[in-house]
């Protein structure tokens, strides 16, 4: 992109089939304003064609390229190399945690998608419902819809200290999806779905999810909001109101 060049060591976690994972290093000359995904793609294009990684949109709308970069969850397509290392530094890239590894940097997200379906989370919502609950609604004067913020990248699940302790925990994106879905549909079944040990009550409010979310979803806030709604729902049920 520009004339400034850095020399970095890219360390990638590799894993094929049932073999044990190992790391492989590549010395790269990079433009610091390039994205982490560009460097990974260049390793595949010019150094090692066996490298497996997942990517699609390259501009943060699809969520396919979530990885751990120097220990922190990043959407690699919009993370400039400048933000994660320095000239002469290292950039360690690993697959997301808390998901089974398929190969190299790709993880199996099928359970995650099953739960998102259970949370009835849709990708398209009316514009005013697609924003965070504490944001001012745009005065758009019409009934517009938009693709929502959550791109299902899994970064929040990887960063969550509770997801690390048990795969039974739904995890931030699922609960955030249920909160979003409930705010639009008011379907009480969604509250019953999350009102359980591995649902909203398992969260310990670490807010790591919100810290790493590349897409402004604020799952931590949504889980807290969902708790309030669950309690309200319980009280209503106690007094016989449905």
């Amino acid at each position: 992109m520009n004339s400034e060049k850095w020399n970095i060591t890219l360390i990638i976690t590799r894993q094929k089939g049932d073999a044990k994972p190992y790391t492989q290093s590549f010395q790269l000359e990079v433009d610091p304003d390039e994205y982490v995904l560009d460097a990974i793609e260049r390793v595949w294009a010019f150094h090692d064609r066996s490298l497996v990684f997942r990517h699609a949109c390259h501009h943060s709308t699809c969520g396919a390229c979530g990885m751990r970069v120097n220990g922190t969850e990043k959407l690699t397509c919009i993370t400039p190399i400048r933000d994660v290392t320095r000239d002469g530094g290292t950039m360690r890239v690993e697959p997301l945690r808390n998901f089974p590894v398929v190969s190299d940097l790709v993880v199996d997200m099928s359970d995650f998608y099953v739960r998102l379906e259970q949370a009835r989370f849709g990708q398209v919502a009316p514009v005013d419902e697609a924003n965070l609950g504490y944001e001012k609604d745009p005065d758009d004067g019409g009934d517009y819809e938009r693709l929502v913020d959550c791109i299902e990248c899994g970064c929040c699940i990887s960063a969550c200290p509770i997801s690390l302790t048990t795969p039974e925990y739904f995890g931030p994106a699922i609960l955030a999806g249920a909160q979003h879905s409930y705010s639009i549909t008011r379907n009480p079944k969604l509250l019953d779905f999350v009102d359980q040990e591995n649902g909203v009550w398992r969260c310990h409010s670490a807010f790591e999810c919100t810290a790493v979310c590349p897409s402004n979803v604020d799952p931590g806030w949504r889980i807290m909001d969902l708790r309030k709604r669950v309690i309200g729902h319980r009280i209503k049920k106690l007094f016989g109101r449905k």
Partner: protein
Amino acid sequence: MPDQPHVIVIGAGFTGCAVAHDLALRGIRATVLDRGEIASGTSGRTHGLLHSGGRYCVNDKESAVECIEENKILRKIAKQCIEFNGGYFVALNESDLEYAPLFEAGAQECGIEIEKIPVDKALKVEPNLNPNVLAVYTVPDGTFDPLRLALAFAATAKKNGAEFRPYHEVTGLIMNGQGNVTGAEVWDRVTNHKYKLHGDMVVNATGAWAGAITKMVNAKASVVPTPGIMVAYDQRLINRVVNRLNAPGDGDILIPQRRMVCIGTTSFEVSDADYIPIEEDQVEFMYRCAVELVPAVKSTNQRGWWMSARPLVGSGESGRSLARTFKCFDHKATDNIDGLVTITGGKATTCRAMAETTVDVVCEKLGIRAECVTRETPLISYRNYYLS
């Protein structure tokens, strides 16, 4: 069904996924191979414009008609991943105004519903639009999520029996004694082992990489990889797609997507689309184009830049003048090699039609009589692709 014909589809972009979907509905067993996952090449990186056809209605009417027909179909069958708020074509100078009568006539001829609306009305509903706008037309444009659109086709194909093998790279084609294609040599990059896969037919749906596959058997495919640069900014400044009212050019479409706006695009030709560097001056040029349409882009931060290599069908002309329509080559007719069909060209918006044409050719070659029903078949949730 033991004697069910088996078709190998190379490429899991929009076209390959839509081909697998169509094959499955017509009772043909499909195995989709891709060196990446779903939409890892050109498809994933499109800027996500669900074309109304307005962009092409003056100088590429065939593409424009394809776009509006498919736009209406996708809005019905793939609503789950489309934000459909319509779009504007806006005139900002005299040259744009001179294009207006051509645009009106072209849109009418191609069956695209447009309406000229008062400028003050447009500015009221899209307040970030350039206040110096001279004329505004509405068009039925939309924005889709690229990965999820491809996944929705793949998920539905899978439900109907198609098999997807991501990260399985085709390294060669298998030929029989008569010089016809009967399968593919495959490298499973997940487990790092190689194997052979036989089929009754191979469909080459690799788009910008179609030439790399046909080269394996010395067949021809006149595909010109024609990349374009796009840039995303971190505020959703518009709810509608904003197009420049003029002949197709660089940086003339600004689209809303999630919490962003994205501007596209440029057009240049390359010989190999595996890795294409991005030049800083092109990113700056896109920024100037975006600011011209919506000046508030100045107040945003750049969120990302990227490029995507269009698979244009070559005809000896340069990128912008190449038609955006698609072409299906039966290599029996072009190279006297049976068992191989290449589909390329086209646009994301027209992927279903591309698949219909391809599977019509496949069915005819295999002697199968089955009607295409993809126009009326809603796609199931894209997430089902990941459920075994």
